[in-house]
């Protein structure tokens, strides 16, 4: 308790305390006096107030706090769980992506290595082709030399034949020439043999190199095919991995969008609920107001009817009382007349006159009563009607021609300055004439026999 509060309580205690001395108590016959310390009293009050506040506030605060904390804990748990799931998924996807990237790098390196092998085998093939061309050229050169030797041998033979016409020298020369020719021929053969051997060797070497080159080529083709197959497989794996990654990312995005959408929908639902609650409260208020009005109307109606009934009953009673009184008077008069008739003897005309006068008076009185009754009833009914009208009165809608007022305001601002009178306006003549249509419609109207007051075919939208 703060000092101000303590001062206030002290003030109250001082205000309500009664100050007396012990002698006064003794004088009053009091033997014992119970005294309570002011400080202790303040302390007790403070304790009571604190107890009351804390128990009330504590209970409420504890209840609300517990509820709020539980709700927040649940919500937090859900959000954390969702976040954890999403984080785990993202980590898994990141790992998958890293793995795919690593694999892709490895495959790219392998592809590069295979490409290098392919290049090397291509170079070897080119070299073998060059060697083959070289061997072929050498073979051609050897063949040319063999042809030259053959021509030389032929020339020697011709020289030997020309020497036959001469003598022994010619024979010797011929023999020598023959020998030379034979030698040349041998040399030629030898040369041819050597050439053929060289050609064969060259062809063999060429064939060998060609086979080697073909083998290399075949191996290269197989290697290339194999490498291409592997590359294709690597590519398809890579594509698959990429697609999978994209699908996972799409899935994550979709989940996020759905989460946001659900959140939005939750907000909308909450707003709609609040609107409906407010509308319901307003409807209830309106219903209460209308019920109250109805009750008032019913009471007024009952009062009016009761008033009417009372008036009618009262008038009816009055009328009946008057009629009863008149009847009693009539009976009395009749009795008197009878007595008089008995005393004086029959005097029909006098009796008739008196009876007639009494009847006339009675009829006049009855008419008067009836008239008063009708007037009273009419007043009562009018009062009831007024009451009912008052109860059921509603504001009368009076449509105001707002558009006329608005348009008048625009026209009242006066004519606007313009250059219309100096400029023309586009005019077009429609190729379709309307005379026939007008006549046809007029005839159609005539067939339907419209009344003179029937409106022309003005259409407000249906």
């Amino acid at each position, binding site marked *: 308790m703060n000092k101000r509060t303590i001062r206030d309580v002290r003030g109250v205690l001082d205000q309500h305390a009664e100050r007396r001395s012990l002698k006064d108590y003794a004088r009053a016959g009091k033997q014992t006096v119970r005294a309570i310390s002011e400080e202790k009293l303040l302390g007790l009050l403070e304790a009571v107030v604190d107890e009351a506040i804390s128990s009330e506030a504590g209970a409420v605060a504890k209840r609300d706090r517990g509820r709020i904390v539980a709700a927040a804990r649940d919500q937090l748990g859900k959000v954390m769980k969702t976040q954890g799931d999403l984080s785990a998924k993202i980590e898994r996807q990141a790992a998958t992506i890293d793995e795919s990237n690593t694999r892709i790098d490895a495959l790219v390196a392998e592809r590069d290595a295979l490409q290098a092998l392919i290049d090397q085998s291509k170079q070897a093939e080119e070299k073998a082709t060059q060697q083959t061309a070289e061997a072929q050229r050498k073979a051609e050169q050897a063949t040319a030399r063999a042809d030259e030797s053959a021509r030389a041998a032929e020339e020697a033979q011709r020289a030997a034949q020309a020497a036959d016409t001469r003598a022994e020298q010619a024979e010797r020369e011929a023999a020598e020439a023959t020998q030379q020719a034979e030698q040349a021929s041998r040399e030629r053969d030898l040369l041819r043999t050597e050439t053929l051997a060289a050609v064969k060797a060259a062809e063999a070497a060429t064939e060998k190199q060609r086979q080697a080159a073909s083998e290399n080529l075949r191996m290269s083709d197989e290697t290339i095919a194999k490498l291409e197959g592997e590359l294709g497989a690597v590519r398809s794996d890579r594509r698959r991995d990429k697609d999978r990654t994209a699908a996972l990312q799409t899935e994550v995005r979709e989940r996020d969008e759905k989460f946001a959408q659900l959140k939005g929908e939750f907000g909308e639902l909450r707003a709609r609920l609040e609107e409906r609650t407010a509308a319901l409260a307003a409807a209830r208020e309106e219903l209460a107001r209308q019920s109250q009005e109805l009750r008032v109307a019913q009471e007024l109606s009952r009062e009016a009817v009761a008033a009417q009934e009372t008036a009618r009953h009262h008038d009816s009673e009055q009328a009946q009382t008057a009629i009863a009184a008149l009847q009693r008077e009539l009976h009395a008069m009749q009795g008197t007349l009878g007595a008089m008739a008995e005393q004086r003897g029959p005097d029909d005309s006098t009796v008739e006159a008196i009876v007639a006068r009494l009847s006339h008076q009675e009829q006049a009185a009855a008419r008067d009563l009836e008239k008063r009754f009708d007037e009273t009833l009419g007043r009562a009914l009018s009062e009831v009607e007024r009451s009912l009208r008052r109860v059921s009165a509603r504001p009368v809608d009076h449509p105001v021609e707002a558009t006329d007022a608005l348009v008048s305001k625009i026209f009242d601002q006066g004519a606007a300055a313009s250059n*219309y009178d100096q400029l023309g306006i586009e005019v077009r003549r429609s*190729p379709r004439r309307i005379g*026939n249509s007008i006549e046809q419609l*007029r005839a159609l109207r005539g067939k339907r026999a419209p009344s003179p007051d029937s409106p022309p*075919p003005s259409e407000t939208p249906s």
Partner: protein
Amino acid sequence: MAADTDSVKVPENSSPEHPATPSAQGKSDTKGNGPTKGMAATQGASGNVSPTDDIVALGRGLDVGTANLLSAAQVGDGEPVVRAERNAFLQLPKEFTVNRQMLTNLKVPYVAYEDRLYVLGNSSFDLANLLSNEVRRPMLGGFLSPNERDAIPMIRFMLERLLGEPNEPGEACWYSLPAPSIDSDNDTVYHEGVVSSLLNKLGFTPRPINEGHAIVYSELGDSDFTGITVSCGGGMFNVCVAYRAIPAVTFSVSRGGDWIDEHVARVMGIPRTRATAIKEGSTSEGRGLNLAAPQTREEEAVVLYYRSLISYVLQNLKQRFELAQDVPQFSEPVEVVVAGGTSLVGGFTEIFAEELRSVSLPIPIKGVRRADDAFTSVVRGCLIAAALDEQG
């Protein structure tokens, strides 16, 4: 019944003369004068109108459309003369307010209102391009725009320009009114009230007529005024089913040429003006669009949205037939007539007929045709109603 003479067929691939949207300019035979004395032709600054073109009959027609305003009167022997103006305006910057003579020299009509200068109608589009500004539209979706504060004064000035003074006080002026839309919450009361009040103030006796019903008057004379009409405007499509000139079913949908432009621009990622130009066949390529044979992806998108809109209208018409209790039973096949600027694109009637076949309406259909002068169908129908009103 004899057909109207001088009907002109609109070639399928021609550019629309007065489309529902801003880019193209209309063509005209003659230039008339301003609104000083009704539509009687007096010599104007640019006029070459014959002095015998006086108005011969009372009664005016007025088409109050989202994209265009048109007025019509009778001259000669039942020949309607139509004045048209784009339903748009442009507020000029202050520096123009002191140089009004220049505007007159450039043949730009202006009006000064509340210390501001406005250019009205067709010229507003040219100046808007020049000044890199946007025109403002008094109407939106077939009705007065609630967001345009100067809508009513601008409509007033344009109507003054189109109608001029009445030939006699209280001359009947029948104006087109759209039916309530089945797909949006529009209210005809305010729009009808304002237009009626404006015409009253201008000295006319206003009478509204449903837009689709006006086309029945102008296009179905040969069919005993029995059939189905569709007014294809910039802001909305209006449908009317009539039997012997009496409308049995009328409704509108709040989609029109502007809806097609907007969606094509969005899905193609192009400016809206480009979408409009493609639809109207006024691109730099110079080739008109034919809905039955699109050439580019953008044209295909236009066709897609045209088909979607036509199918939407026909499905709703079918539903109205099935739900309405007082629809007449047509024993003979009836004609479907389409009109309005949005129907002027090439191939429109073909795809309309295709969509009609797929919808299968519960009444026999003879065929689909476009009004011979589709741009002026509504205003001619209004003029016919006005002539009947005045002449009995």
